[in-house]
Protein backbone atom coordinates (compact mmCIF):
# COMPACT_ATOMS: atom_id res chain seq x y z
CA UNK A 1 0.00 0.00 0.00
CA UNK A 2 2.75 2.33 -0.67
CA UNK A 3 1.91 3.90 -3.96
CA UNK A 4 -0.20 6.67 -5.35
CA UNK A 5 -3.78 5.92 -6.15
CA UNK A 6 -3.62 2.93 -4.00
CA UNK A 7 -3.26 4.41 -0.60
CA UNK A 8 -6.72 3.36 0.34
CA UNK A 9 -6.65 0.48 2.76
CA UNK A 10 -6.62 -3.08 1.66
CA UNK A 11 -9.37 -5.40 2.72
CA UNK A 12 -9.15 -5.87 6.42
CA UNK A 13 -9.55 -9.45 7.43
CA UNK A 14 -10.26 -10.66 10.87
CA UNK A 15 -12.47 -13.11 12.60
CA UNK A 16 -15.81 -11.85 13.83
CA UNK A 17 -15.50 -9.05 16.30
CA UNK A 18 -16.83 -8.91 19.77
CA UNK A 19 -17.61 -5.86 21.84
CA UNK A 20 -14.09 -4.55 22.22
CA UNK A 21 -14.31 -2.47 25.32
CA UNK A 22 -15.48 -5.31 27.46
CA UNK A 23 -12.82 -7.68 26.17
CA UNK A 24 -10.10 -5.18 26.84
CA UNK A 25 -11.12 -4.45 30.39
CA UNK A 26 -11.27 -8.09 31.40
CA UNK A 27 -7.92 -8.89 29.80
CA UNK A 28 -6.19 -6.10 31.64
CA UNK A 29 -7.31 -7.67 34.87
CA UNK A 30 -6.19 -11.12 33.76
CA UNK A 31 -2.64 -10.38 32.77
CA UNK A 32 -2.20 -7.15 34.66
CA UNK A 33 -2.04 -9.09 37.90
CA UNK A 34 1.01 -10.53 39.58
CA UNK A 35 1.58 -13.05 36.79
CA UNK A 36 3.25 -10.44 34.64
CA UNK A 37 6.44 -9.21 36.15
CA UNK A 38 7.13 -5.51 36.47
CA UNK A 39 10.35 -5.92 34.51
CA UNK A 40 8.59 -7.21 31.41
CA UNK A 41 6.14 -4.36 31.63
CA UNK A 42 8.91 -1.78 31.69
CA UNK A 43 10.78 -3.52 28.88
CA UNK A 44 7.68 -3.71 26.67
CA UNK A 45 6.69 -0.11 27.30
CA UNK A 46 10.24 1.03 26.63
CA UNK A 47 10.31 -0.87 23.34
CA UNK A 48 7.02 0.66 22.24
CA UNK A 49 8.23 4.09 23.35
CA UNK A 50 11.35 3.79 21.18
CA UNK A 51 9.20 2.73 18.21
CA UNK A 52 6.84 5.65 18.84
CA UNK A 53 9.78 8.02 18.85
CA UNK A 54 10.65 6.81 15.35
CA UNK A 55 7.08 7.38 14.14
CA UNK A 56 6.66 10.74 15.85
CA UNK A 57 10.05 12.33 15.27
CA UNK A 58 9.64 13.43 11.62
CA UNK A 59 6.27 15.06 12.36
CA UNK A 60 7.71 16.72 15.43
CA UNK A 61 10.63 17.95 13.37
CA UNK A 62 8.22 19.35 10.78
CA UNK A 63 6.33 21.33 13.41
CA UNK A 64 9.54 22.67 14.97
CA UNK A 65 11.15 23.45 11.61
CA UNK A 66 8.15 25.41 10.40
CA UNK A 67 8.67 27.93 13.20
CA UNK A 68 12.20 28.76 12.09
CA UNK A 69 13.47 31.33 9.66
CA UNK A 70 14.92 30.23 6.35
CA UNK A 71 18.49 30.61 7.55
CA UNK A 72 17.90 29.00 10.94
CA UNK A 73 16.48 25.97 9.21
CA UNK A 74 20.04 25.14 8.27
CA UNK A 75 21.98 26.67 11.12
CA UNK A 76 20.14 25.41 14.22
CA UNK A 77 19.76 21.86 15.53
CA UNK A 78 16.72 20.17 14.04
CA UNK A 79 14.64 19.51 17.13
CA UNK A 80 15.33 22.64 19.14
CA UNK A 81 13.27 25.78 18.78
CA UNK A 82 14.94 28.91 17.49
CA UNK A 83 13.38 32.35 17.01
CA UNK A 84 9.64 32.21 16.47
CA UNK A 85 9.13 32.78 12.75
CA UNK A 86 5.98 30.77 12.17
CA UNK A 87 3.70 33.72 11.45
CA UNK A 88 6.27 35.34 9.16
CA UNK A 89 6.58 32.05 7.33
CA UNK A 90 2.82 31.70 6.96
CA UNK A 91 2.60 35.28 5.68
CA UNK A 92 5.40 34.59 3.20
CA UNK A 93 3.67 31.35 2.19
CA UNK A 94 0.38 33.17 1.64
CA UNK A 95 1.86 35.80 -0.63
CA UNK A 96 4.39 33.74 -2.57
CA UNK A 97 3.48 33.49 -6.24
CA UNK A 98 0.18 35.28 -5.68
CA UNK A 99 -0.92 33.00 -2.85
CA UNK A 100 -0.82 29.89 -5.02
CA UNK A 101 -0.45 27.71 -1.91
CA UNK A 102 -3.98 28.46 -0.73
CA UNK A 103 -5.26 27.81 -4.23
CA UNK A 104 -3.66 24.34 -4.03
CA UNK A 105 -5.14 23.83 -0.57
CA UNK A 106 -8.58 24.81 -1.88
CA UNK A 107 -8.16 22.43 -4.82
CA UNK A 108 -7.18 19.60 -2.49
CA UNK A 109 -10.23 20.32 -0.34
CA UNK A 110 -12.52 20.41 -3.39
CA UNK A 111 -11.09 17.19 -4.87
CA UNK A 112 -11.24 15.39 -1.53
CA UNK A 113 -14.54 16.67 -0.13
CA UNK A 114 -16.58 16.57 -3.33
CA UNK A 115 -14.89 13.37 -4.45
CA UNK A 116 -15.33 11.50 -1.18
CA UNK A 117 -18.97 12.60 -0.76
CA UNK A 118 -19.88 11.44 -4.27
CA UNK A 119 -17.86 8.25 -3.87
CA UNK A 120 -19.59 7.44 -0.60
CA UNK A 121 -23.03 8.07 -2.10
CA UNK A 122 -22.28 5.80 -5.06
CA UNK A 123 -20.90 3.08 -2.82
CA UNK A 124 -23.85 3.39 -0.44
CA UNK A 125 -26.44 3.11 -3.22
CA UNK A 126 -24.67 0.11 -4.76
CA UNK A 127 -24.04 -1.67 -1.47
CA UNK A 128 -27.65 -1.02 -0.39
CA UNK A 129 -29.01 -2.45 -3.65
CA UNK A 130 -26.80 -5.54 -3.30
CA UNK A 131 -28.08 -6.15 0.21
CA UNK A 132 -31.78 -5.29 -0.24
CA UNK A 133 -32.63 -6.48 -3.76
CA UNK A 134 -32.16 -9.67 -5.72
CA UNK A 135 -31.75 -8.86 -9.37
CA UNK A 136 -30.26 -10.27 -12.53
CA UNK A 137 -26.55 -9.58 -12.73
CA UNK A 138 -26.18 -9.17 -8.98
CA UNK A 139 -23.72 -12.05 -8.60
CA UNK A 140 -21.75 -10.83 -11.61
CA UNK A 141 -21.50 -7.36 -10.07
CA UNK A 142 -20.27 -8.83 -6.78
CA UNK A 143 -17.70 -10.99 -8.57
CA UNK A 144 -16.42 -8.05 -10.61
CA UNK A 145 -16.18 -5.80 -7.54
CA UNK A 146 -14.21 -8.45 -5.64
CA UNK A 147 -11.97 -9.22 -8.61
CA UNK A 148 -11.16 -5.59 -9.32
CA UNK A 149 -9.68 -5.15 -5.87
CA UNK A 150 -6.66 -7.03 -7.16
CA UNK A 151 -6.09 -4.40 -9.86
CA UNK A 152 -3.57 -1.91 -8.47
CA UNK A 153 -4.63 1.69 -8.92
CA UNK A 154 -1.31 3.04 -10.09
CA UNK A 155 -1.19 0.66 -13.05
CA UNK A 156 -4.47 2.22 -14.16
CA UNK A 157 -3.12 5.76 -13.88
CA UNK A 158 -1.34 5.80 -17.24
CA UNK A 159 -4.24 4.39 -19.33
CA UNK A 160 -6.68 6.56 -17.36
CA UNK A 161 -4.59 9.53 -18.41
CA UNK A 162 -4.75 8.37 -22.05
CA UNK A 163 -8.53 7.99 -21.69
CA UNK A 164 -8.94 11.46 -20.19
CA UNK A 165 -6.92 12.99 -23.00
CA UNK A 166 -9.25 11.30 -25.49
CA UNK A 167 -12.30 12.56 -23.60
CA UNK A 168 -10.82 16.04 -23.46
CA UNK A 169 -10.96 15.92 -19.67
CA UNK A 170 -7.24 16.18 -18.96
CA UNK A 171 -6.35 19.36 -17.13
CA UNK A 172 -9.85 19.82 -15.68
CA UNK A 173 -11.40 19.36 -12.23
CA UNK A 174 -13.59 16.57 -13.57
CA UNK A 175 -10.58 14.75 -14.96
CA UNK A 176 -9.32 14.21 -11.45
CA UNK A 177 -12.69 13.84 -9.70
CA UNK A 178 -14.35 11.23 -11.90
CA UNK A 179 -11.72 8.43 -11.83
CA UNK A 180 -11.74 8.56 -8.02
CA UNK A 181 -15.45 7.70 -7.94
CA UNK A 182 -14.73 4.12 -8.90
CA UNK A 183 -14.00 2.63 -5.49
CA UNK A 184 -14.83 -1.11 -5.40
CA UNK A 185 -13.51 -1.54 -1.88
CA UNK A 186 -16.04 1.05 -0.73
CA UNK A 187 -18.84 -0.88 -2.44
CA UNK A 188 -17.75 -4.02 -0.65
CA UNK A 189 -17.76 -2.24 2.70
CA UNK A 190 -21.15 -0.61 2.01
CA UNK A 191 -22.61 -3.97 1.08
CA UNK A 192 -21.39 -5.50 4.35
CA UNK A 193 -22.65 -2.55 6.36
CA UNK A 194 -26.06 -2.67 4.65
CA UNK A 195 -26.39 -6.39 5.32
CA UNK A 196 -25.71 -5.84 8.99
CA UNK A 197 -27.55 -2.59 9.56
CA UNK A 198 -30.61 -2.56 7.29
CA UNK A 199 -33.32 -5.03 8.34
CA UNK A 200 -35.46 -6.11 5.39
CA UNK A 201 -38.56 -6.06 7.61
CA UNK A 202 -38.07 -2.33 8.08
CA UNK A 203 -37.83 -1.78 4.32
CA UNK A 204 -41.00 -3.76 3.86
CA UNK A 205 -42.77 -1.76 6.57
CA UNK A 206 -41.73 1.47 4.84
CA UNK A 207 -43.10 0.08 1.58
CA UNK A 208 -46.44 -0.72 3.18
CA UNK A 209 -46.54 2.83 4.49
CA UNK A 210 -46.29 3.97 0.89
CA UNK A 211 -42.68 5.15 0.88
CA UNK A 212 -41.03 4.94 -2.54
CA UNK A 213 -37.85 2.88 -2.96
CA UNK A 214 -35.57 5.89 -3.31
CA UNK A 215 -37.16 7.72 -0.43
CA UNK A 216 -36.71 4.63 1.73
CA UNK A 217 -33.03 4.56 0.79
CA UNK A 218 -32.52 8.27 1.40
CA UNK A 219 -34.39 8.52 4.71
CA UNK A 220 -33.92 5.05 6.16
CA UNK A 221 -31.07 3.25 4.43
CA UNK A 222 -28.50 6.03 4.57
CA UNK A 223 -29.26 6.71 8.20
CA UNK A 224 -29.00 3.07 9.22
CA UNK A 225 -25.72 2.69 7.35
CA UNK A 226 -24.29 5.98 8.56
CA UNK A 227 -21.59 4.71 10.92
CA UNK A 228 -20.21 2.47 8.18
CA UNK A 229 -20.43 5.22 5.62
CA UNK A 230 -18.19 7.40 7.79
CA UNK A 231 -15.46 4.80 7.29
CA UNK A 232 -15.86 4.86 3.51
CA UNK A 233 -15.97 8.65 3.55
CA UNK A 234 -12.77 8.92 5.56
CA UNK A 235 -10.80 6.48 3.45
CA UNK A 236 -12.08 7.96 0.21
CA UNK A 237 -11.17 11.39 1.55
CA UNK A 238 -7.68 10.28 2.52
CA UNK A 239 -7.27 8.51 -0.81
CA UNK A 240 -7.89 11.62 -2.85
CA UNK A 241 -6.08 13.90 -0.39
CA UNK A 242 -2.98 11.72 -0.86
CA UNK A 243 -3.41 11.27 -4.60
CA UNK A 244 -0.25 12.09 -6.50
CA UNK A 245 0.44 10.07 -9.64
CA UNK A 246 -2.86 10.77 -11.42
CA UNK A 247 -2.86 14.56 -10.84
CA UNK A 248 0.80 14.61 -11.82
CA UNK A 249 -0.13 13.03 -15.15
CA UNK A 250 -3.48 14.71 -15.75
CA UNK A 251 -2.94 18.30 -14.65
CA UNK A 252 -0.57 20.74 -16.27
CA UNK A 253 -2.30 23.92 -15.14
CA UNK A 254 -0.67 25.08 -11.88
CA UNK A 255 -3.99 26.62 -10.80
CA UNK A 256 -5.68 23.20 -10.75
CA UNK A 257 -3.03 21.27 -8.83
CA UNK A 258 -3.61 19.72 -5.41
CA UNK A 259 -1.20 20.26 -2.51
CA UNK A 260 0.76 17.06 -3.07
CA UNK A 261 1.77 18.05 -6.59
CA UNK A 262 2.28 21.71 -5.74
CA UNK A 263 4.47 21.10 -2.71
CA UNK A 264 6.66 18.48 -4.38
CA UNK A 265 7.06 20.93 -7.24
CA UNK A 266 8.31 23.52 -4.77
CA UNK A 267 10.61 20.96 -3.22
CA UNK A 268 12.09 20.27 -6.63
CA UNK A 269 12.44 23.96 -7.39
CA UNK A 270 14.04 24.68 -4.00
CA UNK A 271 17.32 23.32 -5.34
CA UNK A 272 17.66 26.52 -7.34
CA UNK A 273 15.43 28.85 -5.28
CA UNK A 274 16.72 28.50 -1.68
CA UNK A 275 13.84 30.45 -0.05
CA UNK A 276 11.37 27.82 -1.18
CA UNK A 277 12.71 25.22 1.23
CA UNK A 278 11.18 26.81 4.33
CA UNK A 279 7.93 27.42 2.44
CA UNK A 280 7.81 23.73 1.52
CA UNK A 281 8.29 22.88 5.19
CA UNK A 282 5.56 25.24 6.39
CA UNK A 283 3.23 24.18 3.58
CA UNK A 284 3.73 20.52 4.42
CA UNK A 285 3.03 21.23 8.07
CA UNK A 286 -0.21 23.04 7.21
CA UNK A 287 -1.28 20.22 4.90
CA UNK A 288 -0.54 17.46 7.41
CA UNK A 289 -1.62 18.67 10.82
CA UNK A 290 -5.36 19.38 10.24
CA UNK A 291 -5.90 16.10 8.39
CA UNK A 292 -4.03 14.13 11.01
CA UNK A 293 -6.10 15.80 13.71
CA UNK A 294 -9.42 15.07 11.98
CA UNK A 295 -8.44 11.51 11.19
CA UNK A 296 -7.32 10.80 14.70
CA UNK A 297 -10.33 12.53 16.26
CA UNK A 298 -12.64 10.29 14.24
CA UNK A 299 -10.58 7.22 15.12
CA UNK A 300 -13.43 5.55 16.97
CA UNK A 301 -15.65 5.62 13.86
CA UNK A 302 -13.33 4.20 11.27
CA UNK A 303 -11.75 1.70 13.63
CA UNK A 304 -15.20 0.33 14.41
CA UNK A 305 -15.83 0.39 10.67
CA UNK A 306 -12.69 -1.64 9.94
CA UNK A 307 -13.70 -4.19 12.53
CA UNK A 308 -17.31 -4.36 11.31
CA UNK A 309 -16.08 -4.57 7.73
CA UNK A 310 -14.02 -7.58 8.65
CA UNK A 311 -17.00 -9.57 9.88
CA UNK A 312 -17.66 -11.00 6.48
CA UNK A 313 -14.72 -9.63 4.54
Amino acid at each position, binding site marked *: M*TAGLQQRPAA*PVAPASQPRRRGRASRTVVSGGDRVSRGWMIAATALVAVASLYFLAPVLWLVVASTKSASQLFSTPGFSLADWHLWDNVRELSTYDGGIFWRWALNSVVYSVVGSLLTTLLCAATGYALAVYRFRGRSLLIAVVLGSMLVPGTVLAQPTYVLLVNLGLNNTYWGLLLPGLSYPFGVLLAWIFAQNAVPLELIEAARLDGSGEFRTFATLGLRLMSSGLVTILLFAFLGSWNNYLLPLLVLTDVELMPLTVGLTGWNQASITIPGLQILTVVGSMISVVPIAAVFLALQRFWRAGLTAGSVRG
Partner: protein
Amino acid sequence: MVAQAPSAVVPRRRVIGGGGRWVPYAFVTPFVLVFLTFMLAPIVIAVVNGLYSSQSSGLGFGGAETVFVGLRNYARAFADTDFLFSFVRVALYGVVQVPVMMVIAAVLALLFDSALVKARRFFQFAVFLPYAVPGVIAALLWSFFYQPSVSPLVQGLQAIGVDADLLAPGTVLWSVANVSIWSNAGINMIILFSALQSLPRDTFEAARLDGAGELRIALSLKLPMIAPAVMLTTLSTVIGTLQLFNEPQVLQFITPNISSDWTPNMAIYAVSTLGRDAHLGSAMAVILGLVTLVVSLVLVRFTNSSARGGAR
Protein backbone atom coordinates in the same frame (compact mmCIF):
# COMPACT_ATOMS: atom_id res chain seq x y z
CA MET B 1 -43.22 -0.62 -16.37
CA VAL B 2 -43.86 -4.01 -14.89
CA ALA B 3 -47.29 -4.90 -13.58
CA GLN B 4 -47.17 -5.22 -9.82
CA ALA B 5 -48.02 -8.67 -8.60
CA PRO B 6 -50.52 -8.68 -5.74
CA SER B 7 -48.51 -9.01 -2.61
CA ALA B 8 -50.56 -11.86 -1.22
CA VAL B 9 -49.48 -14.09 -4.09
CA VAL B 10 -45.71 -13.71 -3.93
CA PRO B 11 -44.93 -12.25 -0.53
CA ARG B 12 -41.25 -13.24 -0.57
CA ARG B 13 -40.46 -11.53 -3.81
CA ARG B 14 -41.96 -8.33 -2.48
CA VAL B 15 -39.51 -8.25 0.38
CA ILE B 16 -36.52 -8.41 -1.82
CA GLY B 17 -37.82 -6.67 -4.91
CA GLY B 18 -40.28 -3.90 -4.17
CA GLY B 19 -41.01 -1.21 -6.71
CA GLY B 20 -40.35 -1.80 -10.39
CA ARG B 21 -37.85 -4.34 -11.62
CA TRP B 22 -35.68 -1.48 -12.78
CA VAL B 23 -35.26 -0.06 -9.27
CA PRO B 24 -32.13 -2.01 -8.28
CA TYR B 25 -30.53 -1.09 -11.58
CA ALA B 26 -31.18 2.58 -10.89
CA PHE B 27 -29.28 2.16 -7.63
CA VAL B 28 -26.23 0.47 -9.14
CA THR B 29 -26.08 2.31 -12.48
CA PRO B 30 -23.99 5.31 -11.34
CA PHE B 31 -21.33 3.06 -9.85
CA VAL B 32 -21.40 0.67 -12.79
CA LEU B 33 -20.92 3.59 -15.18
CA VAL B 34 -17.87 5.02 -13.40
CA PHE B 35 -16.56 1.51 -12.91
CA LEU B 36 -16.83 0.70 -16.61
CA THR B 37 -15.32 4.05 -17.58
CA PHE B 38 -12.46 4.29 -15.13
CA MET B 39 -11.65 0.69 -14.28
CA LEU B 40 -12.53 -1.48 -17.23
CA ALA B 41 -12.00 0.99 -20.08
CA PRO B 42 -8.45 1.90 -18.95
CA ILE B 43 -7.53 -1.79 -18.95
CA VAL B 44 -8.88 -2.19 -22.49
CA ILE B 45 -7.20 1.05 -23.53
CA ALA B 46 -3.85 -0.05 -22.15
CA VAL B 47 -4.03 -3.37 -23.99
CA VAL B 48 -5.15 -1.83 -27.30
CA ASN B 49 -2.93 1.25 -27.04
CA GLY B 50 0.10 -0.93 -26.43
CA LEU B 51 -0.35 -2.52 -29.83
CA TYR B 52 -0.09 0.77 -31.68
CA SER B 53 2.59 3.32 -32.19
CA SER B 54 2.53 6.89 -33.36
CA GLN B 55 4.95 7.63 -36.12
CA SER B 56 5.64 11.11 -37.27
CA SER B 57 5.73 11.51 -41.00
CA GLY B 58 8.62 13.22 -42.73
CA LEU B 59 10.55 15.69 -40.64
CA GLY B 60 8.06 15.68 -37.78
CA PHE B 61 5.82 18.25 -39.43
CA GLY B 62 2.23 17.58 -40.31
CA GLY B 63 1.27 15.52 -37.26
CA ALA B 64 1.83 11.91 -36.38
CA GLU B 65 -0.18 8.97 -37.53
CA THR B 66 -1.06 5.96 -35.43
CA VAL B 67 -0.14 2.60 -36.87
CA PHE B 68 -0.64 -0.94 -35.69
CA VAL B 69 2.69 -2.45 -34.67
CA GLY B 70 1.64 -5.69 -33.01
CA LEU B 71 3.89 -6.64 -30.14
CA ARG B 72 6.71 -4.31 -31.10
CA ASN B 73 6.15 -2.08 -28.05
CA TYR B 74 6.43 -5.16 -25.86
CA ALA B 75 9.63 -6.15 -27.61
CA ARG B 76 10.99 -2.66 -26.96
CA ALA B 77 9.98 -2.83 -23.30
CA PHE B 78 11.69 -6.20 -22.87
CA ALA B 79 14.78 -4.95 -24.66
CA ASP B 80 15.00 -2.04 -22.22
CA THR B 81 17.40 -3.39 -19.61
CA ASP B 82 16.77 -0.43 -17.27
CA PHE B 83 13.06 -1.23 -17.27
CA LEU B 84 13.75 -4.89 -16.59
CA PHE B 85 16.22 -4.04 -13.86
CA SER B 86 13.62 -1.84 -12.18
CA PHE B 87 11.67 -5.06 -11.48
CA VAL B 88 14.77 -6.64 -9.95
CA ARG B 89 15.21 -3.51 -7.85
CA VAL B 90 11.67 -3.52 -6.44
CA ALA B 91 11.97 -7.28 -5.85
CA LEU B 92 15.14 -6.73 -3.81
CA TYR B 93 13.43 -3.84 -2.06
CA GLY B 94 10.36 -5.95 -1.30
CA VAL B 95 12.36 -8.90 0.02
CA VAL B 96 13.68 -6.60 2.76
CA GLN B 97 10.94 -4.00 3.21
CA VAL B 98 7.94 -6.36 3.42
CA PRO B 99 9.28 -8.65 6.19
CA VAL B 100 10.74 -5.75 8.18
CA MET B 101 7.49 -3.81 8.10
CA MET B 102 5.32 -6.84 8.83
CA VAL B 103 7.53 -7.80 11.79
CA ILE B 104 7.34 -4.26 13.16
CA ALA B 105 3.56 -4.18 12.69
CA ALA B 106 3.05 -7.64 14.20
CA VAL B 107 5.35 -7.07 17.19
CA LEU B 108 3.67 -3.76 17.99
CA ALA B 109 0.18 -5.24 17.54
CA LEU B 110 1.06 -8.15 19.87
CA LEU B 111 2.56 -5.78 22.44
CA PHE B 112 -0.51 -3.55 22.34
CA ASP B 113 -2.72 -6.61 22.64
CA SER B 114 -0.88 -7.84 25.71
CA ALA B 115 -1.51 -5.85 28.84
CA LEU B 116 2.20 -5.09 29.11
CA VAL B 117 2.23 -1.65 27.56
CA LYS B 118 1.29 1.40 29.58
CA ALA B 119 -0.28 4.49 27.94
CA ARG B 120 -1.44 2.32 25.08
CA ARG B 121 -3.78 4.87 23.49
CA PHE B 122 -1.03 7.45 23.17
CA PHE B 123 1.50 5.01 21.70
CA GLN B 124 -1.02 3.67 19.20
CA PHE B 125 -1.72 7.24 18.16
CA ALA B 126 1.99 7.78 17.62
CA VAL B 127 2.46 4.66 15.50
CA PHE B 128 -0.59 5.39 13.38
CA LEU B 129 0.05 9.11 12.90
CA PRO B 130 2.26 8.73 9.78
CA TYR B 131 -0.62 7.08 7.91
CA ALA B 132 -2.44 10.40 7.95
CA VAL B 133 0.57 12.01 6.25
CA PRO B 134 0.32 11.83 2.43
CA GLY B 135 2.98 9.53 0.96
CA VAL B 136 4.69 12.25 -1.01
CA ILE B 137 4.72 14.59 1.99
CA ALA B 138 6.25 11.75 4.03
CA ALA B 139 8.96 11.40 1.39
CA LEU B 140 9.48 15.15 1.42
CA LEU B 141 9.75 15.10 5.19
CA TRP B 142 12.28 12.29 5.21
CA SER B 143 14.23 13.98 2.43
CA PHE B 144 15.11 16.64 5.00
CA PHE B 145 16.39 13.84 7.25
CA TYR B 146 18.54 12.47 4.46
CA GLN B 147 20.19 15.69 3.28
CA PRO B 148 23.36 16.29 5.33
CA SER B 149 22.88 20.08 5.29
CA VAL B 150 19.64 20.01 7.31
CA SER B 151 19.44 16.47 8.65
CA PRO B 152 19.38 16.10 12.43
CA LEU B 153 19.97 12.41 11.78
CA VAL B 154 23.17 12.75 9.75
CA GLN B 155 24.44 15.50 12.05
CA GLY B 156 23.67 13.41 15.10
CA LEU B 157 25.56 10.46 13.66
CA GLN B 158 28.47 12.74 12.79
CA ALA B 159 28.59 13.92 16.39
CA ILE B 160 29.25 10.36 17.51
CA GLY B 161 31.78 9.85 14.74
CA VAL B 162 29.70 7.99 12.17
CA ASP B 163 29.84 9.34 8.65
CA ALA B 164 26.60 8.26 7.07
CA ASP B 165 25.57 8.98 3.51
CA LEU B 166 21.92 7.98 3.38
CA LEU B 167 21.66 8.78 -0.32
CA ALA B 168 24.66 6.82 -1.62
CA PRO B 169 24.07 4.28 -4.42
CA GLY B 170 24.18 1.41 -1.93
CA THR B 171 21.99 2.95 0.76
CA VAL B 172 19.37 4.93 -1.11
CA LEU B 173 17.17 1.86 -1.70
CA TRP B 174 16.90 1.38 2.08
CA SER B 175 16.28 5.07 2.64
CA VAL B 176 13.27 4.77 0.32
CA ALA B 177 12.17 1.59 2.11
CA ASN B 178 12.37 3.43 5.42
CA VAL B 179 9.88 6.04 4.19
CA SER B 180 7.28 3.48 3.22
CA ILE B 181 7.81 1.49 6.42
CA TRP B 182 7.28 4.71 8.36
CA SER B 183 4.13 5.49 6.40
CA ASN B 184 2.45 2.11 6.35
CA ALA B 185 3.48 0.18 9.47
CA GLY B 186 0.74 1.96 11.43
CA ILE B 187 -2.25 0.90 9.33
CA ASN B 188 -0.99 -2.68 9.20
CA MET B 189 -0.52 -2.63 12.96
CA ILE B 190 -4.12 -1.40 13.39
CA ILE B 191 -5.51 -4.16 11.15
CA LEU B 192 -3.54 -6.87 12.96
CA PHE B 193 -4.47 -5.35 16.31
CA SER B 194 -8.19 -5.37 15.39
CA ALA B 195 -7.85 -9.03 14.47
CA LEU B 196 -6.12 -9.81 17.78
CA GLN B 197 -8.77 -7.97 19.76
CA SER B 198 -11.52 -10.09 18.29
CA LEU B 199 -9.94 -13.41 19.33
CA PRO B 200 -11.67 -15.38 22.09
CA ARG B 201 -9.84 -14.73 25.35
CA ASP B 202 -10.58 -17.99 27.17
CA THR B 203 -8.14 -19.94 24.98
CA PHE B 204 -5.27 -17.84 26.28
CA GLU B 205 -6.49 -18.14 29.84
CA ALA B 206 -6.46 -21.92 29.48
CA ALA B 207 -2.93 -21.80 28.10
CA ARG B 208 -1.89 -19.58 30.98
CA LEU B 209 -3.27 -22.06 33.46
CA ASP B 210 -1.22 -24.71 31.69
CA GLY B 211 1.82 -22.60 32.44
CA ALA B 212 2.47 -21.03 29.05
CA GLY B 213 4.25 -17.67 29.17
CA GLU B 214 2.98 -14.55 27.44
CA LEU B 215 5.66 -14.81 24.74
CA ARG B 216 4.75 -18.42 24.04
CA ILE B 217 1.04 -17.51 23.87
CA ALA B 218 1.75 -14.65 21.49
CA LEU B 219 3.89 -16.68 19.13
CA SER B 220 2.22 -20.07 19.10
CA LEU B 221 -1.41 -19.14 19.76
CA LYS B 222 -2.23 -15.56 18.84
CA LEU B 223 -0.09 -15.27 15.72
CA PRO B 224 -1.40 -18.45 14.03
CA MET B 225 -4.96 -17.40 14.88
CA ILE B 226 -4.64 -14.11 13.01
CA ALA B 227 -2.84 -15.74 10.07
CA PRO B 228 -5.52 -14.62 7.53
CA ALA B 229 -5.07 -10.98 8.54
CA VAL B 230 -1.27 -11.34 8.39
CA MET B 231 -1.48 -12.89 4.93
CA LEU B 232 -3.79 -10.22 3.58
CA THR B 233 -1.77 -7.29 4.88
CA THR B 234 1.34 -8.99 3.47
CA LEU B 235 -0.35 -9.43 0.09
CA SER B 236 -1.39 -5.80 -0.14
CA THR B 237 2.09 -4.70 0.94
CA VAL B 238 3.69 -6.83 -1.78
CA ILE B 239 1.32 -5.36 -4.39
CA GLY B 240 2.17 -1.89 -3.08
CA THR B 241 5.88 -2.66 -3.43
CA LEU B 242 5.51 -3.45 -7.11
CA GLN B 243 3.66 -0.14 -7.57
CA LEU B 244 6.36 1.89 -5.82
CA PHE B 245 6.31 5.44 -7.16
CA ASN B 246 5.63 8.33 -4.78
CA GLU B 247 8.59 8.03 -2.44
CA PRO B 248 11.40 7.54 -5.00
CA GLN B 249 9.80 10.10 -7.34
CA VAL B 250 10.12 12.73 -4.61
CA LEU B 251 13.54 11.62 -3.33
CA GLN B 252 14.79 11.71 -6.89
CA PHE B 253 15.03 15.51 -6.58
CA ILE B 254 17.70 15.34 -3.89
CA THR B 255 19.93 12.57 -5.18
CA PRO B 256 21.34 11.57 -8.54
CA ASN B 257 21.28 7.95 -7.38
CA ILE B 258 17.59 7.57 -8.21
CA SER B 259 17.14 7.51 -11.96
CA SER B 260 13.91 8.47 -13.69
CA ASP B 261 13.18 4.80 -14.42
CA TRP B 262 14.16 3.54 -10.98
CA THR B 263 10.93 1.55 -10.44
CA PRO B 264 8.52 0.10 -13.04
CA ASN B 265 5.93 2.78 -12.33
CA MET B 266 8.53 5.53 -12.59
CA ALA B 267 9.65 4.12 -15.93
CA ILE B 268 6.04 4.12 -17.17
CA TYR B 269 5.61 7.68 -16.00
CA ALA B 270 8.89 8.80 -17.56
CA VAL B 271 8.14 7.17 -20.91
CA SER B 272 4.60 8.54 -21.01
CA THR B 273 5.56 12.11 -20.16
CA LEU B 274 9.22 12.87 -20.84
CA GLY B 275 9.59 10.19 -23.50
CA ARG B 276 6.28 11.24 -25.05
CA ASP B 277 5.47 7.69 -25.99
CA ALA B 278 2.11 6.81 -24.42
CA HIS B 279 1.94 3.65 -26.51
CA LEU B 280 5.14 2.24 -25.07
CA GLY B 281 3.95 3.42 -21.66
CA SER B 282 0.71 1.48 -22.06
CA ALA B 283 2.59 -1.68 -23.02
CA MET B 284 4.80 -1.27 -19.95
CA ALA B 285 1.70 -0.74 -17.76
CA VAL B 286 0.21 -3.97 -19.10
CA ILE B 287 3.46 -5.80 -18.27
CA LEU B 288 3.46 -4.37 -14.74
CA GLY B 289 -0.22 -5.26 -14.32
CA LEU B 290 0.39 -8.84 -15.42
CA VAL B 291 3.44 -9.24 -13.18
CA THR B 292 1.41 -7.92 -10.25
CA LEU B 293 -1.43 -10.29 -11.04
CA VAL B 294 0.89 -13.30 -11.27
CA VAL B 295 2.66 -12.40 -8.02
CA SER B 296 -0.71 -11.95 -6.25
CA LEU B 297 -2.03 -15.25 -7.54
CA VAL B 298 1.15 -17.08 -6.51
CA LEU B 299 0.92 -15.54 -3.05
CA VAL B 300 -2.77 -16.42 -2.73
CA ARG B 301 -2.07 -19.98 -3.86
CA PHE B 302 0.86 -20.23 -1.44
CA THR B 303 -1.31 -18.84 1.36
CA ASN B 304 -4.14 -21.25 0.69
CA SER B 305 -1.91 -24.29 0.53
CA SER B 306 -0.04 -23.35 3.70
CA ALA B 307 -3.37 -22.72 5.44
CA ARG B 308 -4.51 -26.16 4.41
CA GLY B 309 -1.20 -27.59 5.58
CA GLY B 310 -1.70 -25.93 8.93
CA ALA B 311 -5.16 -27.40 9.29
CA ARG B 312 -3.93 -30.93 8.75
